[in-house]
């Protein structure tokens, strides 16, 4: 029995993805939710662990008529609400841009940071995601250069497709600059 096997098509020529080179890009808006829920969960866990400590340890020396261990709940709830409120400002402050020579990461509300990584120096790029990121369909892109312990910068709040485009653009573009 013969089968007509269609000839394997020639591979499509590789087209370098365009990442709007030079223009500052914003993160996906869903990252605000990730940060907000992250803040609630993080401080909630801290309250669950530290709260009983305050009850048990401080209770030893405290006069219950004067002092009731509410310090930990107040601190944890305050920081959780602060994290919720500041997420929007963080989102507006976070941008990244890929220029002809470098990747520029700008972020920070109170402490502002603008980090530039030469494209030719990038050794490898990781794409990772935590459970909250996955819940909202987002990933983080981490950039690694030679000799450094850990990544030199991490771009949160990207969709998987966008992250792949960025990774390809940087690594392919890196060869052009090598």
């Amino acid at each position, binding site marked *: 029995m013969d089968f007509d096997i269609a000839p394997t098509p020639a591979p499509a020529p590789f087209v370098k993805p365009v990442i709007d080179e030079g223009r500052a890009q914003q993160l996906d808006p869903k990252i605000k939710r990730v940060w907000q829920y992250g803040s609630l969960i993080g401080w909630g866990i801290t309250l669950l662990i530290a709260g009983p400590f305050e009850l048990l340890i401080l209770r030893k020396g405290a006069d219950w008529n004067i002092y009731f261990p509410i310090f930990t709940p107040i601190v944890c709830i305050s920081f959780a609400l602060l994290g919720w409120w500041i997420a929007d400002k963080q989102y507006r402050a976070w941008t990244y841009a890929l220029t002809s020579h470098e990747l520029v990461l700008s972020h920070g509300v*109170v402490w502002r940071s603008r980090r530039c990584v030469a494209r030719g120096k990038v050794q490898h790029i990781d794409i990772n995601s935590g459970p909250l990121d996955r819940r909202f369909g987002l990933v983080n892109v981490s950039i690694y250069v030679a000799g450094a312990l850990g990544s030199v910068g991490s771009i949160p709040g990207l969709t998987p497709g966008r992250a792949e485009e960025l990774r390809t653009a940087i690594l392919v573009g890196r060869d052009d600059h090598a």
Partner: protein
Amino acid sequence: MTMPERKRLHPATILMAAGKFGKDFLFGIVAVIGATMFGKGGDRSEWIFLVLGGAIGVFAIIPAIFKYLNFTYEITNDSLNIWSGLFFKQNRTIPLERIQNVTVKKGVIQNLLGVCSVMIETASGAGAEADLSVVTHAEADRLVQILRRDSSIPAEESPSAAFTAGLKDLIMAGATQNKAGIIFIFVVGLFQYVQEPAIDFFTKRVLKNAEHWVASTSAYLIVGGLLLFGFLFVGWLWSIVTTVIAYYGFRLEPSAGVLRIRRGLFTQLQTAVPLHRIQTVRMHEPILQRMMGYCVLFADSAASFEDKQAGGAIQLIPMIRKSNAGDLTSLIFPALNLADVEWQKVSPLTVRRGFIRYCFTSLVLSGMLLPLVHAKALFALPPLLIISWFAAKKRYEVLGYATKDGFLLSRSGIWKRYISALPVDRVQWTARTQDFFQTRLNLANVSAVPASSTMAGRVEIVDLPLEIASQIQESLLRDAGDAAGV
């Protein structure tokens, strides 16, 4: 072709692990015994702590036994292979040509047992890729011979001009520094075990005796002053002793593109650092050394075992005449010339920022005196504020940066002067940061980071006008080029 032989570590590995645990635990044992003998009878909870610690110690030796049983290695024609792990098995292959540095470390106990550690580094920044602790001296010599022969470390040539440090130099180097801070931490750590007897002794004996001679307030000040002097004196002695022990027999030889360093009285260290791996050179001038025209030189590389050294860098030499420092730095970076540098100033607003910071510190210091001398602590404020102003002015005068001959240079430090030099082509990434107050004053800090595994390797310039900070950041990466940088 002979088959490569798969080998185990020396059985003394288990003993060394037990010894390390005991050494870490020794402080607690001594403290509890001291508290029991000199205190009001040891608290039972402290003895329970000791017993628990002993039990933990027994369990700590079990991993060492497993390590000995499950760790093997072999050297083939082109790679070093290591198998380790019981539950999480690992097989690591290190190509011999990737090996950048092989260090042999011999401690006192190790020497007595006839063993030593061999640590192998590559260009990765995560510390030792392979740590063969412990093997016999003969095995270490064999490993070093094979690994250095086939690695990227060139063979040792006949010795050329070497830098050495004799006993007199080491005593001078130790005497011009002071490790009182370490003594302070040790005493604070011990204090929690001997709190009550220490306070009793201090208030009922020392102060009472002092008050026979002088008024109560002066007694506090005199006793406080003597205690401070005691800390500084003991710290000074400790600095001399530790420097002599760490650098006895110091010898630094450049040889075929590698710096070979040998040092140590009890723990002998031999290391070879390829020059091309060095990212930053730093010159430290403690105040006493600066007054005598001496300095200390550090080099920061992409990976280093010496995490006990300042900032994780390699201390090239414990002390050297500043006029001779150029001979050593020119071995590493021939184009670097630290003489005749035209330092550019940072923003004058740094005086105000520095003054506010030092005022805050002064307030905290005065506040710490309040429980002792009550309202009289406020008398300490005016002199502290005056000192803060002069310190802020001096800091502004010292702070500076320069770009010269393809290097980015920075200078800082009032008490201890720091000068860093980073070749621009080794810059991996840059950062421009602003805190809340800098944003309002239109100032920023700029950092240039090489292929270094430590924070110490970066060059930072603080309190620049924002526009200049941006220009420097852009020009650094433009000039850095796209080399791999390691």
